[in-house]
């Protein structure tokens, strides 16, 4: 015996007094009474909406008991499920319900993949552009780039003098070297240097030394015309640089940096 506890729904046939659609031992609810009058009732027009279709579902607390003690089962006939007509949404190839969908599978899938693939390419490009815009907004802005080059009149710097300019937020040392300074630096044994570099490799015109005045140890600004090597001395931790900006003594690991520069030829120097 199966005990069915739920709201009626489409289980009504099983609970009617006069009809037994399943051979079971379900007791009739009440004894059958023959109808004496023929009553004609127009058939109910059932609209297939989500709401009306959902009424076919059992609702409430549906419980079905089954097990060793039960001898029968009830099956729903799935052939009576009403499905709305979706032909307005179907593709041309599969409009006909009897058409073999596998035949048009390739063309249908190709179209879908093409559209999705194209959309993905456009989307990827758009995403890349968007991220690129945000990231590049953090890069140097136009006013910073405008100060990225400096032009110096070399005629204003006397021989033997080292002048400091602010360039890209850092001190720039321009030294007008004397012939004896140049000779001294050319004669230095390169192999004895911590950071071996020949003076000729560090200057374009031997008369002008162009270096960035930031100590390569921990970033302090060295003092010009100081130290034991006729160049620069960093007071923070005692690094000595020569007149070519090379480290000679002290904790700094590298020579003072040489930036990009050029002599356009009219007695000026452009750095950057």
């Amino acid at each position, binding site marked *: 015996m199966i005990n069915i506890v739920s709201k009626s729904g489409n289980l009504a046939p099983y609970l009617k007094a006069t009809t037994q659609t399943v051979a079971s031992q379900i007791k009739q609810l009440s004894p059958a009474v023959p109808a004496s009058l023929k009553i004609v009732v127009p058939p109910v027009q059932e609209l297939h909406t*989500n*709401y009306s279709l*959902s009424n076919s*579902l059992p609702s409430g607390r549906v419980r079905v008991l089954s097990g060793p003690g039960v001898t029968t089962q009830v099956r729903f006939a799935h052939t009576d499920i009403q499905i709305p007509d979706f032909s307005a949404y179907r593709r041309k190839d599969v409009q006909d319900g009897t058409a073999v969908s596998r035949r048009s599978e390739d063309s249908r899938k190709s179209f879908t993949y093409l559209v999705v693939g194209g959309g993905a390419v456009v989307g990827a490009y758009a995403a890349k552009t968007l991220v690129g*815009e*945000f990231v*590049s*907004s*953090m*890069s*140097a*802005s*136009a*006013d*910073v780039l405008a100060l990225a080059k400096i032009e110096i009149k070399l005629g204003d710097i006397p021989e033997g003098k080292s002048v400091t300019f602010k360039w890209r937020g850092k001190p720039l040392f321009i030294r007008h070297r004397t012939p004896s300074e140049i000779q001294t630096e050319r004669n230095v044994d390169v192999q004895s240097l911590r950071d071996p570099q020949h003076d000729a490799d560090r200057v374009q015109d031997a008369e002008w030394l162009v270096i960035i005045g930031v100590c390569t140890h921990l970033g302090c600004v060295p003092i010009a015309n100081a130290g034991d090597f006729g160049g620069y001395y960093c007071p923070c931790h005692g690094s000595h640089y020569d007149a070519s900006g090379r480290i000679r003594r002290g904790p700094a690991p590298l020579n003072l940096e040489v930036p990009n520069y050029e002599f356009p030829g009219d007695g000026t120097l452009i750095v950057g």
Partner: protein
Amino acid sequence: TNISMWWNFGSLLGVCLIAQIATGLFLAMHYCPNTEAAFSSVAHICRDVNYGWILRTMHANGASMFFICIYLHIGRNIYYGSYKLVHTWSIGVLILFATMATAFLGYVLPWGQMSFWGATVITNLLSAVPYIGTILVQWVWGGFAVDNATLTRFFALHFLMPFAIAALAMVHLLFLHQTGSNNPLGLKSDTDKIPFHPYFVTKDIVGFIILFTALSTLSLKEPYLLSDPDNFIPANPLVTPVHIQPELYFMFAYAILRSIPNKLGGVVALVMSIAILFALPAYKSKFTGTQFYPANQLMFWIMTNTVLLLTWIGARPVEDPYIVTGQILTTIYFMYYIITPLTTKHWDQLNK
């Protein structure tokens, strides 16, 4: 399955918030919240910073899009009776207040004439509070007038508030997911659910594309269409512009504020014009929404048009005939909230 385009505005608001936070964050990297440098820093962003111009215009116009979406979202909720989801609705009104506060604070930051004088006018409203008004205003200002101290704290608060809005939005969704969404029929839709992916993922993406198109068109073709030319003049505490007015999205509230001749009364009306939304869940009806209440539908559209007309009035100078027009429209606006529940009750009784 029957939720219409009006249900897209929730996700659109989320997108707006993310866009505002992203653009705002990158703007904050270049902005300087000091009265000496604020105006120039905004010019620097627009001219020197790589893509700064688009960051700025997207952020300014994004705020307008945010308010368009939020007003349409609220309109949908009133029309379809979604305010019956009390907790979701209440958090939503809080989000509206927080968004209005954030937008107000943000508008002060460029430190143009309208930024300064808008800040002065609105912060001066606090002096209407009885007894503690003056002390309260000076505490908010950090001085005796809107000045550097005000600008720096407004920047800090403008940076902070969107994250509070994001948190509130998450709570808003939390409550919404307890009950599920409403739908245009106002009926229970438990048997009619479809998976979020792919249906509403795609539907939301369509909404994003439309929003992005609108925002881009505005930002790229007419970026200053909705802004005030007075804000291109650096703030001058000694010269007040002839027409002080807030941005478009605050105009209706500004019109309501100016309609009441009394200072404190105007402030109360301003706050109540938004806070009255808290009262809506108390309006009971047999059916959810206005689908079956044609009289209420008519009143809703009258109210919507009243708000649009109030927006127009807010931009007009305080002269005849705009004064009395504004007062009539203010009355109509508040009358909607009083008449609606009565109409609903009457209609329900008629249909008994």
